[in-house]
């Protein structure tokens, strides 16, 4: 170590505010960060390699734990890859069920973001509130799939079960409740809270050009003013026939990343309402053999998950398992930015900025 005056502070991998096992090595001068290094890989479980040893139907429980905050979207993504490769077409009801579940999962994931962001800037109430709302949706997901965090709901060719009978009656009041609380309670606790705005505005700015250079996607990108959403630009499932807006903000700081997610929750609620109205009847899955054989092929599918653009690139060689599966995780690219945007800020900002990028280490380390 060269001669230096400051302190090296090691934050993580076991630290309450690092969203799992992120490790940051901060080079401090007083309370100011001179340099920061991001160290990832503490949750590496070899997911891509594991895919090569599983049948196409048996990889779902593992894909659940990629981004464990939005597990259903991971399942849907993997399902889409397999179905595209094997040339399976979904029945229309399955498409709608998948879309509803994906949007429910997006709301849940954004609620986790709101809660943990609130907690990381020091507001414990926001955390409990967000998890209270998430719990209602969790109950819905549980009633649909039987699982809560890792639902195991999607299978090749559709979903494992149909929606329960009174799904509509159960979901509608929950959505109304969440919309009301977002517009009233959360506005009071976050948007109109001076200290919250002071802590987050102008902190951790990622501007437009940096976003494009570094491949940051999802809400973090839209917060910098780029209007791009795969649900709109490359519609998959039934997003084409849905009417929703893509919220954007201009400044690209932590506050706008927060606002984007709040707005996206509202948009997701809109989508679910429309989907519930238009959901067709019919079979919820096509029969697909458990042991699929996919011919030699290269398949690439990308979808807009709650963290950004998630993609899977699958190479098959005619066997029962993928030859290679590459996963592109969105927050991996945002985390890389920490080294740039945290330079010169205070220790307290580390936590706020990390939370504002909404990383889930399960997906970053894979």
């Amino acid at each position, binding site marked *: 170590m060269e001669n230096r005056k400051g302190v090296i502070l090691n934050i993580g991998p076991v630290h309450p505010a690092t969203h799992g096992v992120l490790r940051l090595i901060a080079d*401090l001068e007083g*309370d100011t960060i001179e340099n920061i290094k991001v160290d990832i890989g503490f949750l590496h479980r070899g997911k891509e390699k594991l895919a090569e040893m599983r049948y196409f139907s048996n990889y779902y429980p593992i894909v659940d734990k990629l981004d464990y905050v939005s597990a259903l979207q991971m399942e849907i993504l993997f399902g889409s890859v397999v179905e595209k490769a094997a040339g399976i077409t979904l029945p229309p009801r399955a498409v709608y069920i998948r879309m509803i579940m994906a949007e429910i999962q997006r709301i849940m994931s954004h609620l986790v973001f709101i809660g943990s962001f609130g907690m990381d800037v*020091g507001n414990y109430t926001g955390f409990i509130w967000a998890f209270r709302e998430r719990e209602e949706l969790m109950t819905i997901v549980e009633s649909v799939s039987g699982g809560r965090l890792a639902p195991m709901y999607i299978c090749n060719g559709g979903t494992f079960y149909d929606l329960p009978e009174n799904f509509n009656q159960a979901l509608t009041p929950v959505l109304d409740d969440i919309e009301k609380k977002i517009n009233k309670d959360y506005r009071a606790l976050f948007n109109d809270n001076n200290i919250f705005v002071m*802590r987050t505005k102008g902190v951790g700015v990622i501007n437009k050009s940096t976003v494009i250079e570094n491949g940051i996607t999802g809400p973090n990108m839209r917060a910098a003013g780029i209007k791009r959403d795969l649900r709109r630009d490359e519609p998959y499932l039934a997003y084409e026939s849905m009417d929703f807006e893509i919220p954007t903000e201009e400044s690209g700081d932590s506050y706008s990343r927060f606002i984007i997610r709040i707005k996206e929750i509202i948009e997701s609620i809109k989508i679910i309402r429309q989907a519930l109205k238009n959901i067709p009847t019919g079979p919820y899955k096509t029969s697909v053999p458990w042991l699929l054989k996919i011919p030699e092929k290269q398949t690439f599918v990308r979808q807009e998950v709650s963290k950004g653009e998630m993609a899977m690139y699958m190479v098959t060689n005619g066997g029962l398992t993928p030859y290679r599966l590459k996963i592109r995780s969105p927050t991996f690219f945002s985390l890389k930015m920490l080294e740039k945007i945290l330079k010169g800020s205070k220790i*307290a900002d580390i936590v706020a900025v990390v939370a504002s990028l909404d990383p889930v280490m399960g997906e970053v380390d894979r």
Partner: protein
Amino acid sequence: MFSYVYGVLSRFFSAPADLIVTLIVMLLVPLTLVAIIPVIIGWVDRKYGARIQSRWGPTYVGPFGILQNVADVIKLIGKRVITTNVDRLSYSFVPIALTAASFLIVVLIPWGAPGLYILDIPYNLLFIYVLMAVSPLLILLAGWSENNKYSIIGGFRGATQIATYELTLIITILSVAMLSGSYNISDIVASQKHLWYVVYLPITFLMFVVAGYAVIERDPFDIPEATQELLAGWKIEYSGLRYGMFLLSDYIKMFALSMLTVYLFFGGWNGPLLPAFAWFWIKTIIAMMILLTPRWVYPRLRIDQLVKFGWNWMLPLSILNLLVVGAVLLV
């Protein structure tokens, strides 16, 4: 109060013994108060916070979980303290000093009725202020003694924060003292017989609350112990009874702040119809509930924002305020 207790006890004991018994009783009273107040306020705080967050808070120990904090203290006492490389002397000294300070606050503060003191001294407001703001050096000492990077950062933050805000606090107290012409809480209360000082000095009142908050390190000004980034700041290596002492002194200070708010700005025990004691406690409980709220509503400020706010706004405003009060008094 001493003479009253002495008068009662001297009926039962003969000449040298009665003085000793009185002294023991007078020591036991503040000790009991120091032990009981944090338990009760801690319960109120937890229950209140839990309701804001739509939880239930403690429910199991005692009716409505009121004995939860007693159970927690017993757990803390039973805890084995594991430390590595701490500076033993200063590490043990800080919690004791902070507890002694909160004990002295309890001894010096009047308890809600004229003459209801454990110890009456003419400058008690000044003394209580000193005891509440005694900690910058102690916090720095604690942070240093623990030999941990998080704790030393917390210690420096604490010292900076309190050094910034205790100046504002004493100047706001000074303007109240100038208006009433005394540093004695009884006299200050007596001079508010007709009109509360909050009517004369609304800005002083707000500044007093904010500065008081910063000095006692209550959320949202708990920057030195910032749970998220510094884990527990300067308290990080403390556990067991020593940590319990910190909690205790925190709650005593919180309580003292709400009592002082009532004494200095809301007329203390003055009020129509009801007896003085009742008035005081009604006001204190309302003040305390309001003062407990920000913790559950506001996020934490950043240290540079807090210090900037302190030097740029609070201090000049408080000095200006003092000058205005002085000018009004001269005219």
